[in-house]
């Protein structure tokens, strides 16, 4: 790779972080804890979810360590069950669901639509507090001995057959769910009602479209999870129930209610990441996203179709063959918009002018890994192959490919991309490119063998396994070590950059988008004057004219 880059930093000897910005506006703990500023709330979220990510990651490390050997020798089976349950609960509800929306989304959406803040700043703050309360409940659960139901809380195991802290976990997720609902609600209202003059729907950045689609899912799907958890908690405490056949209830009813949310949940998790990729691919190829309308509509299509496929998690559970048929067909339909997006991003590169800074590297990683993850989803969506592959490591590999290889890479891409805007400083480019590559390699070593393990039949959630599976497990754990390094590096150098990073200036990437037309870090009110949007999204010609004007005026 040549050293071509689009990074355009101001002269470091004279550049300064602007004195007045959202970080310096007010000081003191209370100004942070009682803030209404979406950017401060985004920062609070970023710190919180990073904290939970590392807890979840440590639990993942424990899982992989145990799986080095075929026997249950590192920890007791019960402990292992608690470890993978907490790993799932924390990663899904406390990291993936809020990751891009609550951090990058909160930070950017008002700026991208040209508003001063989200529509309901106090609700935004409440959303963060609910997240923190839920997080404390989750930590309490772990400290008090953990829960071992699996993140899917299958009844009647979770209602009547376990003695662990199911109720506190259920309530923690309930509270976290409302955090998510309020974030989504805020986004929808802001995008509908607070776009600046001239900002029509089709001039919005695709990041906004993706978060809008994810917000619809958050708002409509999460309440169903909430009520399901309430019923589980009640059933557990009162010992009667709608979900236990011994009491006349139906365990399959729980499955339907649970997956009705949890399938859209995976789209809640991935759509904002796709939004990030749109922004990054466009900026680093200096081109408008190919097929803007198709990408925008495919986000909404994923959201809509996503509500109708939940029973593909239940193909072998005794639903009727005909129901399986319908859900399988719908699953095939929901796979198509994702394919459309991948191709549109690929073709954005066509006749572009491409550079390979860190966000772009993560974006490339996303495109490859999400393609694999998505295609393997189709393996599972076809009922016949699902019979053999479901409940094995194939599923584990599939969802880690889309969530970690996809979503987490997109999150890191977004963090690096908007880091200069957020903090006013650039991260160190070389080490971050190294971290991206290390992550990519580590990821593939960790999770690709798991596809093979699954095809061979190794079940998931097993602390012990037949010895012939050991080689692949060792391989996977080795990869996990590399992956861990890849995730630790950003913490280190991003923290370092807060003090020693180069001053970024307004628009180090020479990107389009309203957020890049403001200072870095932005003012609390984002814009001194509400902008008027008079050009299309990703209008690089407009950007060029801006730069020429600036050069002209300075001279």
């Amino acid at each position, binding site marked *: 790779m040549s050293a071509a880059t689009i990074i355009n930093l101001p002269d470091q000897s004279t550049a300064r972080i*602007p004195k007045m910005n959202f970080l310096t506006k007010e000081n003191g703990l209370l100004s942070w804890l009682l803030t209404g500023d979406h950017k401060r709330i985004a920062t609070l979220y970023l710190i919180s979810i990073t904290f939970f990510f590392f807890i979840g990651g440590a639990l993942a490390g424990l899982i992989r360590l145990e799986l080095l050997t075929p026997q249950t020798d590192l920890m007791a089976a019960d402990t292992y069950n608690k470890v993978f349950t907490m790993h799932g609960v924390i990663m899904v509800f406390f990291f993936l669901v809020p990751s891009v929306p609550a951090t990058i989304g909160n930070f950017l959406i*008002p700026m991208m639509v040209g*508003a*001063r*803040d989200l*529509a*309901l*700043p106090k*609700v935004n703050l409440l959303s963060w507090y609910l997240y923190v309360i839920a997080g404390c409940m989750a930590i309490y659960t772990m400290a008090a001995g953990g829960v071992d139901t699996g993140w899917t809380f299958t009844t009647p195991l979770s209602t009547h057959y376990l003695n662990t802290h199911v109720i506190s976990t259920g309530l923690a997720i309930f509270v976290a769910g409302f955090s998510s*609902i309020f974030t989504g*609600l*805020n986004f929808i*209202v*802001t995008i*509908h*009602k*607070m776009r600046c*003059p*001239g900002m029509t729907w089709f001039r919005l950045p695709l990041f906004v479209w993706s978060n809008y689609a994810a917000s619809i899912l958050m*708002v*409509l*799907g*999460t*309440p*169903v999870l*909430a*009520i*399901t958890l*309430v*019923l589980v908690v*009640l059933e557990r405490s*009162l*010992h*009667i*129930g*709608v979900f236990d056949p011994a*009491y*006349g*209830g*139906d365990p399959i*009813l729980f499955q339907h*209610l649970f997956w009705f949310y949890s399938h859209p949940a995976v789209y809640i998790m991935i759509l904002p990441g796709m939004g990030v990729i749109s922004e990054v691919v466009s900026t680093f190829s200096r081109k408008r996203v190919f097929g803007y309308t198709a990408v925008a509509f495919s986000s909404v299509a994923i959201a809509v179709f996503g509500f109708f496929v939940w029973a593909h998690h239940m193909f072998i559970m005794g639903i009727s063959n005909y129901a399986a048929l319908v859900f399988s067909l719908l699953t095939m339909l929901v796979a198509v918009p994702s394919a459309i997006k991948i191709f549109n991003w690929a073709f954005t590169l066509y006749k572009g002018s491409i550079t390979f800074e860190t966000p772009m590297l993560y974006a490339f990683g996303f495109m490859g890994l999400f393609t694999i993850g998505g295609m393997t989803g189709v393996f599972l969506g076809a009922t016949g192959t699902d019979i053999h592959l479901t409940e094995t490591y194939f599923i584990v590999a599939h969802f880690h490919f889309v969530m970690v290889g996809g979503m987490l890479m997109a999150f890191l891409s977004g963090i690096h991309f908007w880091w200069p805007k957020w903090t006013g400083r650039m991260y160190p480019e070389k080490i971050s490119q190294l971290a991206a590559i290390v992550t990519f390699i580590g990821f593939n070593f960790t999770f690709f063998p798991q596809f093979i393990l699954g095809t061979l039949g190794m079940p998931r959630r097993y602390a012990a396994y037949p010895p012939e599976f050991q080689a692949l497990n060792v391989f996977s754990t080795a990869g996990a070590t590399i992956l861990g390094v890849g995730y630790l590096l950003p913490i280190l150098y991003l923290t370092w950059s807060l003090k020693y990073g180069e001053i970024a*200036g*307004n628009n180090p990437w020479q990107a389009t988008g309203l957020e890049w*037309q*403001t*200072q870095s870090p932005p*003012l609390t*009110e984002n*814009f*001194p*004057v*509400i*902008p*008027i*949007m*008079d050009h299309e999204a990703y209008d690089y010609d407009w950007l060029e004219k*801006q730069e020429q*004007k*600036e050069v002209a005026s300075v001279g």
Partner: protein
Amino acid sequence: MSDSSVTAGGAVADAHHEHPPYQRHHFESVDQQFDATNFAMWLFLLTEIMFFGGLFTAYLIMRNWYYPAFVEASHQLNIGWGTANTGVLIVSSFTMAMGVWSAEMRKKGLLILFLSLTFILGLAFLGIKSIEYSEKWEKHHVPGLNWSDASFLNPASDPEVHKLYPQDKPLAPDMASKTEMYFFLYFAMTGMHALHMIIGISILGFMLVRARAGAYTTGHVTYVENFGLYWHFVDIVWIFLFPLLYLISRY
């Protein structure tokens, strides 16, 4: 180079310092504020529909499977109290709507009157509910806590209900045990509804204090109107609950 590029397209006259005191700084106009918060409340009510929807789904499935048990169990509910509660809520929705009108008309006295009436009616609803709940406790119809199937295995042992429904036959033991399921759903649904009522009444109390201070009669009706939406929603949930729970065998 901080803000000049943004205004290149033509600056909007900064009305920043000319807005009414109740307009929040991130909104460009009072209309935008009203529009946005109103939309937000409708959206929130949509989430509440999804929330109650899960409960209704469970209820409908169980009722379909265990119809005889559900019918007999529902006969334990007092239609009189239920109808009274329905009436109370409908009237309270009317008084709430009148409250919104008063706010729009900037009539502080009327606003306080109507909010107080709504508050009292809300409390009345909860009072009637607590009478019903305590009756359930006395008759050992609280699932998981003091449950007994006796009234359904042998309806004659419960004279006041048996008089009203002499056609109810004793249920077989396995069907009789499903009446506990009915009451579980009854308490879950009405309990969730009552929780929303309690939240609503608390907010009403807060609003009464603010209304007396004149906060809602300055033309800023957003708060009252959006709360009105919430109150009407809680009323509508009850309108669905009442026939589903109380009126099962009456078409």
